[in-house]
């Protein structure tokens, strides 16, 4: 699942080269997935999915406890981390967060439907030879 997440991050990084945003790219990917998933499962459903994702990533990155899911489904608290957490660690934590979310989707609706949902957001993204692994998050 990490490979899947990294491909999305790499793709989105290329597209955001000129952007000055400090938000980790993995979180931008999650943010881009949000409308697609909220259409399918509603805001409530998306919030539940993201909360579970945070809970799964927490043990590996305890600083994620400071991050919350807002009412509309976006993440809050990342910017406030400031200098308390190493930026590389934040980058890594967000990548794991994305991998966990993709892993949950694959566990619930399977690889085919998950890839289909992702392709709807990034139609030109190449997902050839992707090994999502079963339940490997």
């Amino acid at each position, binding site marked *: 699942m990490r490979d899947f997440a990294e491909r999305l991050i790499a793709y989105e990084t290329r597209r955001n080269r000129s952007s000055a945003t400090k938000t980790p790219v993995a979180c931008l990917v999650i943010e881009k997935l949000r409308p697609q998933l*909220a*259409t*399918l*499962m*509603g*805001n*409530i*459903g998306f919030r539940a*999915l993201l909360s579970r994702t945070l809970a799964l990533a927490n043990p590996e990155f305890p600083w994620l406890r400071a991050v919350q899911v807002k009412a509309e489904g976006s993440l809050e608290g990342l910017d406030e981390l400031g200098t308390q957490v190493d930026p590389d660690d934040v980058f890594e934590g967000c990548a794991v967060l994305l991998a966990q979310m993709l892993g949950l*989707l694959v566990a*619930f*609706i*399977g690889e*085919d*439907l998950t890839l*289909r*949902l992702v*392709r*709807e957001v990034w139609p030109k993204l190449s997902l050839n030879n992707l090994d999502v692994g079963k339940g490997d998050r």
Partner: protein
Amino acid sequence: MKNRKRNPAKKQAVSQRTKVTIHKLPTGVRGLDDILGGGIPEFSFNIIAGTPGCGKTTLAHQIVFANATARKPALYFTVLGEPALKMLRYQQQYSFFDESKLGKAIRFINLSDVVLEKDLDAVLEEIIREVTATNPGVVVVDSFRTVVRKAMASASELEMQSFIQRLAQFLTSWEATSFLVGEYTVDEMRDNPLFTVADGLFWLSQVAERNSVVRKLQIYKLRGVASVPGLHTIRISDDGMQAFSRTLGLIGQKSKPSRRRRLSVGIPELDKMMGGGVLEGDSLLIAGPSGTGKSALATQFIAEGLRKGEPGIMAIFEERPKGYTDRADSFGLNLRTPQEKGKLEILYLRPLDLSVDETMQEILDAIKRVGAKRLVIDSLVGFEMALAPGFRTDFRESLYRMIAALTGAGVTVLSTVEVEDKFTEMSFSHYTISFLTDDIIRLRYVEIDGQLRKIMVVIKMRGGNHSKDIREYVITDKGVVVIHPRTTEYDGLTTGIPRRTGPRLAQKEEAAPEPKAKSKEKRPLH
């Protein structure tokens, strides 16, 4: 006025030109289009209702997957029912679920937030926005009941009625065939504007009886088409829902030929007793106690048909198929080659929770596959036992429908039924089934000269005259063989304990008169 005579032909032509053609959408549910009179009327506003677990969502999904295309997509609005992720998780297990359709042809849209946070107008607005943007051919709201429940907490009945009216009018105007899925009970139908507005009402139910669950579908109404009334059995399997029409899809089948042939049953003397054989397209019942050769006779009937180039089906419920092929072998009849060539199928139907309609559907499918002209049902008692208890009450009615339809289409049906021999009378069957048979042959044991022998008599031949003789028969290595002319030295044969009225005929003592059907396998020596 004198010159204004109406021309009926012209009037008919005008009315034909002006009548709108209602196109019908396939449901994707096997058997359901037959029940609906061809399919779901295009642009209709329908309700799929029933208690939880009946298959409402599965039915809606099947309809959606059967009709959605990229050019004419389907919108599936989900509302506070089964979470979308779980719905997709479970529904993709069905074979009809084509994931390539998701996204472009089928779009799932969750309305839960709108329903929870806003009012009916906002819900309608959201539906209108999506429908206008997508121009779908099919729209589903699942579950609509939750929309109503939430709305009724704050809106008046009039507002609710207005919402339903606007929704129905909008979806129809946009040329969408729509389905509102909801958990309703029959009592809720009364005074509910939703059911008044709806063009179609699909009611699903499930009833537990002893250890079996029976699912049923009823089409309460369907404007614009003539659907088949009554309760139809449905089953949900890996392929999704399958419906079993009460007509078994046999309406409009070709009728039996006007000039019917006499078919040999494979026993020349019995053919003679029947006036030359059984009439093509007749239903023949062989009734007799255990061991009298009903299955042997049925085997000979099928084998004779195969010999004459008439494919056949044996639907068996007691003995295993190998028993039939072994028996045939021992009679010098070959059932294996026709099976290999697809001219004969032996259907062994023994699960104990079958519905009568799906059993019959299996038989009908097999008949269609091999182009069967002859069908054996061995036996009716076994058939009934194989059914779930809840279906046994429907057994006779369903059997009647199937036999009537099959014989109507020219298939000749031989059924066997086990009856207990009473030594005071001769009953035909514990069923009141003579109404569904054209011809009845009764087999029974009689005690004669210190032996338990077998006799047969043709009780009834609807298609003509038949022999009234009571004939003795034996089961040899040729199968059932009728021996001796009619017996005149006894009376009371039908009681099983006849009284001698004439001299005892000289006869040699028999050692083992009736060798049993033998398997070709060598038996161990003891």
